[in-house]
């Protein structure tokens, strides 16, 4: 067992974990934060997306011990206009990928604002187009196929931020 301390959704949590416990399982099973979902447990669906020091990561491929001293935000710690926008634009159906989509979108907007390019970014492109959003959000699968609504919700919020 290793004792780790993380700031999770604003409060400092101290817990003993075996080194093979993933950050996702630590959050879900030890801290009761079941917002981040386990869809594949192998970095292939994005349902487990959380923010580590503001950066989006897949919690399923992270060992909890590696995040000792870090600041983790799960959907439970999020209060963001995207949440309302997801409802208004129907950016989900079953809801299982939604926590990950929203956390990922928050991280994505921050990355874009910081100048991070994507594979579809042309030289000099600054605008967050729908094509950009689709590429940047491609690490979050939605089997219900709510992609249009998700993109609409993100564009809506991104537009407001920009304006």
């Amino acid at each position, binding site marked *: 067992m290793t004792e780790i301390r993380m700031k999770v959704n604003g409060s400092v949590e101290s817990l003993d974990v*075996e080194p*093979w*416990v993933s950050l996702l*399982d630590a959050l*879900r*099973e030890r801290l*009761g*934060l*079941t*917002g*981040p*979902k*386990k*869809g*594949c*447990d*192998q*970095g*292939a*669906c994005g*349902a487990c997306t959380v923010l580590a020091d503001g950066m989006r990561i897949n919690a399923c491929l992270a060992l909890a011990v590696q995040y000792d001293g870090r600041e983790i935000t*799960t*959907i*439970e710690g*999020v209060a963001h206009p995207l*949440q*309302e926008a*997801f*409802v*208004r634009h*129907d950016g*989900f*159906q*079953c*809801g*299982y*990928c*939604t*926590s990950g989509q*929203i956390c990922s979108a928050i991280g994505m907007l921050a990355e874009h604002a910081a100048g991070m390019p994507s594979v579809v970014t042309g030289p000099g492109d600054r605008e967050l187009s*729908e094509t950009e*959003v*689709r*590429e940047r*959000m*491609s*690490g*979050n*699968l*939605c*089997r*219900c*196929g*709510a*992609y*249009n*609504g*998700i*993109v609409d919700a993100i564009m809506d919020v991104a537009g407001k931020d920009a304006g």
Partner: protein
Amino acid sequence: MTTKYAETAPATTGTKYVGRPIDRLDGLAKTTGEARFAAEHQYPGLAHAALVHATIARGRVTAVDTAAARAVTGVIEVLTHENAPPMKPAPKFSVLDLSSLASGTSVNYLATDEVHWNGQPMAVVVAETPEAARHAASLVRLTYEERPAVVDFAAEEPNAVQQRSNPVMPSAADKGDARAALAAAPVSVDLRFSTPPHHHNAIEPHATTAVWDGDELTLHEGTQNIPWLRKHLSQRFGVPERNIRVLSPFVGGGFGGKGSVWAGTLLAVLAARATGRAVRLALTRESVYHTVGGRTPSTQRVALGADAEGNLTALIHTSVSRTSRIGGMPEQITSGSRHLYAAQNVHLRQNLVQLDLLANTAMRAPGESIGTFALESAVDELAWELGLDPIELRMRNEPERDPLHGKQFAHRMLREAYALGADRFGWRERDPRPGVMRDGRWLVGMGVATAYHPSWRMPASVTLRLGADGGVVVRCGLHEMGMGAATAQAQIAADAMGVPMEAVRVEYGDSDLPPGPGAGGSAQTASAAAGVLAAAEKLKKSLLAMARRQPDSPLRGRRLEEVEARDGGLFHGGRGQTYAEILAGAGRDHVEAAVKSGMLSFMARTLSERRRYVKAATGAQFCEVRVDPDTGEVRVSRWVGVFDVGTVINEKTANSQLRGGIVMGIGMALSEETLVDQRTGRIMNPSLAEYHVPVHADIPRIDVHYLDEPDPTMPLGLIGVGEVSITGAAAAVANAVRHATGKRVVDLPITLDKVL
């Protein structure tokens, strides 16, 4: 349009909510992480289970070595056929009890050493932590005696035999002499198609939390059919149904994959009973592939003959799909071909092989999704042969009555769907020649296809309760896996009772509630709506009776037909009483109305209705693709779908469902394929990394339109929207690729190597 068929409320009601794009009621729970799914419930002493899968296709386990697994810290028990408590065998199928369809397979897990498919669960490890359970499961050693297995669909396909027919799912049809007509036709096409196995891949892997208290069982499980699940568990574990509580308020996607009872559920319940612990079995993604069936592969032949004007003289559609020796569901692959075209001669056959693989199961529009790929591709190819616009060819063959038996269509607006779609899509801009439209270097292609899915209704029991505060509670064991089930029923109930939507609460996803319809066959919304409307009618009747007994009531002497439910009460002209007033006057704190639907009477009515009508949702799919001329990569760049789904209850959630079907159809068209090793029967891509469901970047804006004409044979005129939009979708893509490149791809998925 007036109602020809009973079920809709005779009392005048407004449509204040039905038809409006209302935000889904569980939106907040799903966007804040509050929604708890089946694997997210804690119990004191909760233990965790993991499965051990067979690695051979057929044979017997001759030895089990669990020593290493038992030595893992935290392991509580390792259950195998040598020590597991017995479970009763799966019930045999009976038409009198459709819950007998709930058996995913006929295998009595852990009661047998027999291996029936590669991946069958042969042992369950129960441990204090999920990590220990999974690690220990990897240490269980099984020794086998192998037997020859038949696992190669392509090799076995020539040995197929005709499927058994039943009244709702015929496997053959003949009209005239289609073979002779084909031979004599001046223009014809004769194509062979193949479609691979698919998996549902709901993002929530199947999970069960099972808690025994004596002979009482509480189960958290994402299911598409609470009553079937409960009855099945009652039969397998020998306890009365009333002892079993199934809680399923959130289902993280189903698409058919959570309609039957599969090994994980049974083994979680078994493990909980064997260990005396609350047990959670959250399947790994790989375990889902190995224990939950998917869509059958198919081979199909579609041959069409036409005269020079494009009138169909022959339509031949034959198919081979597969089931398993231990179960599985034959699919109605030629269903669209029965009803879509006015061909003079028709020959339809559905054939089947049985393999030593996990049983297949329903996946979104079983039969029609893959059947329309073949049919609608062939119709498109015939249009090329004729030099005719593919929409025009379809319109020339659009029947007035059902082509096989002359039955009436309950609803049929394909002409209108194509007209509206062509307009919205800009079909006129399409240069009919192949390979000439370009956008920069990209080749551009446009394709159309018809969507077709039969409309069904299932029995549903509903209780409506009106409280003294005027609030309405709808109680029905609905299944919410993303359709917005509760939202739609709240809208319907609010209108039927004439109350604001905020005054309606829908209770669902719980076996303690009146049994709802299963979430399958696109039937839930209409089935529950019938129950809600009937219960509302009953409730209003009771309320009116109460009012009429009150001396000062302005409703005295009024009959139900004269009364309008609005503003939270019953009114005649400008005068009436609120529900609260009626209840207060009667000295009651609530009133309830219950509607129960029995299976037998329901089936009798369904069959008699089917004798008169052909009932279906239809649509016109318009797809534009871009094809890279160097690499053959195909990208869908635009989509318009126009659907005839009767009355739309909630445009927002219906849009999402219809788009979702199209997205899955695009996946089916371009990238989805379960790889079953033909030597071993083992699934080789049991992961979301290697089974390619569409990602954000694959999906363009999808415009969905409705004709919004009520179907007179359905409650409120609504037809289910869950499945129709995946049908025709893959053909629309294939037809667009044909237009862009001149190449007809007949084997799904249309990967670049088939286009290059």
